[in-house]
């Protein structure tokens, strides 16, 4: 549910409650006021009648209400002295309404100078309670509808306007991706809360970007720093190897140690390469002819292919060219070719197909498809390849991402097919 409707929901629920309480309080306070003023009127009337009666004794004989609103009847002195003045609600037949209606009646007692005691009843018409309640409910209902309607309109119109910076921020954040060069621009706003939020988000992102950069930098620095000790260790072993000639077991051990250090070197170099690709340090581009470059790189593998008796076939369906960094193109191609050789069996074959906007390298190999979710992740390697770095295809993936190209895998007809598709814009 949108924020807008949330406000409205809470508003309408609380308004029902508030308006109901208000209606009850309003009803009782209004009734009190009505009684007060009616009773005051009756009191006033009483005094006027008593005053008039003292001058005009004819009044004292008016024992029925009839057309007027008072009646007087003589009473005993004892009763008069004991009785107290009282207001009460009563009902009376109204000619106009043709019904009994609630009336307010004052019953009081007075004496004339002749020591005669009288009871005086004065009536006046009352507000009709049930009608009032009905009217009040009616009015309340309209008020409620009016308030909700206006709240809805105000919400839609004003709040939408006020919340605009928020939606802008949301839009900006949705488009933001850590590791991309895009800078984050918080939307301009005069609302303090949004300004605070924008600043907080901007700060947070700045800190995150800094951490991310540091982390990337760390991998690069760490790899760099490792190169020198690795170099020293390998070289020392090489020197020792020369001095150890003639002792086969020792030579084997040393060679083995060098082999592992070299593996570490390759790991290190691949990590460095990954960082560099991700840090976009390969900006120089030229038009790369993939048909030609694939053949040239394959040439380097000629002896290895021959040794392993793997047949390499070419299908050039089209000329494939694109703006590419030449070094990255070489890395991409060697990694894919090497992959096709390493995961092949002796006597197998490889087919390189070059199309208009993609090239595909298909190879024979283990008769199961690879795990497409994992094969491009770092340090993933199949169980039989303990000496590979597990970074080759991760590098390929990073290069693809760098150029917004597509790299994918299919297992069709017992062939592992890896294709690399250039984006159309290239």
């Amino acid at each position, binding site marked *: 549910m949108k924020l807008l409707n949330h406000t409205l929901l809470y508003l309408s629920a609380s308004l029902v409650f508030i308006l109901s309480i208000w209606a009850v309080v309003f009803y009782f306070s209004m009734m009190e006021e009505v009684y007060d003023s009616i009773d005051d009127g009756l009191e006033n009337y009483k005094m006027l009648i008593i005053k008039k009666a003292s001058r005009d004794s004819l009044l004292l004989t008016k024992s029925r209400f009839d057309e007027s609103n008072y009646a007087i009847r003589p009473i005993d002195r004892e009763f008069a002295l004991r009785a107290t003045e009282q207001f009460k609600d009563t009902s009376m037949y109204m000619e106009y309404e043709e019904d009994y209606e609630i009336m307010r009646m004052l019953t009081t007692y007075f004496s004339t100078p002749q020591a005669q005691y009288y009871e005086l009843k004065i009536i006046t018409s009352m507000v009709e309670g049930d009608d009032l309640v009905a009217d009040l409910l009616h009015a309340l209902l309209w008020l409620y509808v009016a308030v909700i309607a206006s709240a809805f309109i105000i919400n839609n119109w004003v709040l939408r306007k006020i919340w605009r910076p928020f939606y802008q921020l949301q839009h900006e954040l949705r488009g933001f991706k850590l590791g991309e060069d895009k800078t984050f621009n918080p939307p301009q706003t005069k609302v303090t809360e949004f300004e605070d939020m924008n600043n907080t988000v901007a700060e947070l992102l700045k800190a995150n970007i800094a951490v991310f950069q540091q982390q990337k930098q760390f991998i690069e620095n760490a790899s760099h720093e490792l*190169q020198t000790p*690795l*170099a020293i260790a390998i070289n020392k072993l*090489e020197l020792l190897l020369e001095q150890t000639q003639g002792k086969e077991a020792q030579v084997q051990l040393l060679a083995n140690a060098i082999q592992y250090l070299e*593996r570490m070197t*390759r790991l290190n170099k691949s990590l460095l390469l990954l960082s*560099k690709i991700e840090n976009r340090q390969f900006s*120089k581009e030229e038009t790369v002819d993939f048909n030609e470059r694939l053949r040239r790189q394959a040439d380097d593998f000629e002896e290895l292919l021959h040794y392993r008796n793997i047949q390499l076939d070419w299908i050039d369906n089209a000329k494939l060219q694109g703006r590419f960094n030449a070094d990255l193109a070489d*890395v991409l191609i060697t990694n894919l070719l090497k992959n096709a050789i390493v995961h092949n069996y002796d006597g197998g074959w490889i087919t390189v197909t070059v199309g208009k906007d993609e090239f595909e390298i298909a190879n024979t190999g283990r008769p199961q498809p690879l795990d497409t979710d994992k094969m491009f992740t770092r340090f993933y390697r199949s169980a039989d390849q303990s000496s590979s770095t597990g970074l080759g295809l991760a590098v390929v993936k990073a290069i693809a991402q760098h150029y917004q190209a597509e790299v994918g895998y299919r297992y069709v007809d017992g062939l592992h097919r890896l294709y690399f598709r250039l984006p159309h814009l290239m």
Partner: protein
Amino acid sequence: MKLLIIEDEQGLRDNVTQFLQKEQYTVEAAADFHSAMEKIALYDYDCILLDVGLPDGNGLNLLRALKSKQKRDNVIIISAKDSLDDKLEGLNLGADDYLTKPFHLAELNARIKAVLRRKALDGGNVVKLNNMELDFNGRTLCIDGVTIHLNRKEFDILAFFVVNKNRLIYKSALAEHVWGDHMDNADNFDFIYSQIKNLRKKLKDHGANLEIQAIYGVGYKLTV
């Protein structure tokens, strides 16, 4: 031949010094920017191995100073950074070669020899070994005056052995030199053996007075 190694890491300095002394070079070493600056100002060297990442100054500035003094010392840059920009900058400043750490000592040796060969004014760029002549410009091999056809890789292998004669060449050093560093031991270097076998046969057929020995499956050695 007089060489200077400018390198702040003592381990690397010692390795290179020890290795190169065996090649009958006079090797001097400088551990930092300032002592290197002094040595460069005072003496001439045939080849300078320059680590660009010195703690007290950029090695490239040493190269600039060297070139501004019109010195003809050859320079091979050694860097932990495998960065094309650095490489280009170094080469543009007049360095003769660029080597990335870690490297095999045999590779360093081949690079130094190549630089020194190019420098030698009598040029020709030919290395003679017994009854064998290796022409690096024409990339040809002559044995007893007869030219023998070698393909690109065979020539590279032989050249690598020749400059590192009487040394044990570790298999991966040879693979890296000839096939580039993407050829790693995930592929198992057995395929090199068939290459060496072919080369050996060619040398033997033409009566070359040298031998490439396999050393316990670890590497090879050219004995003269």
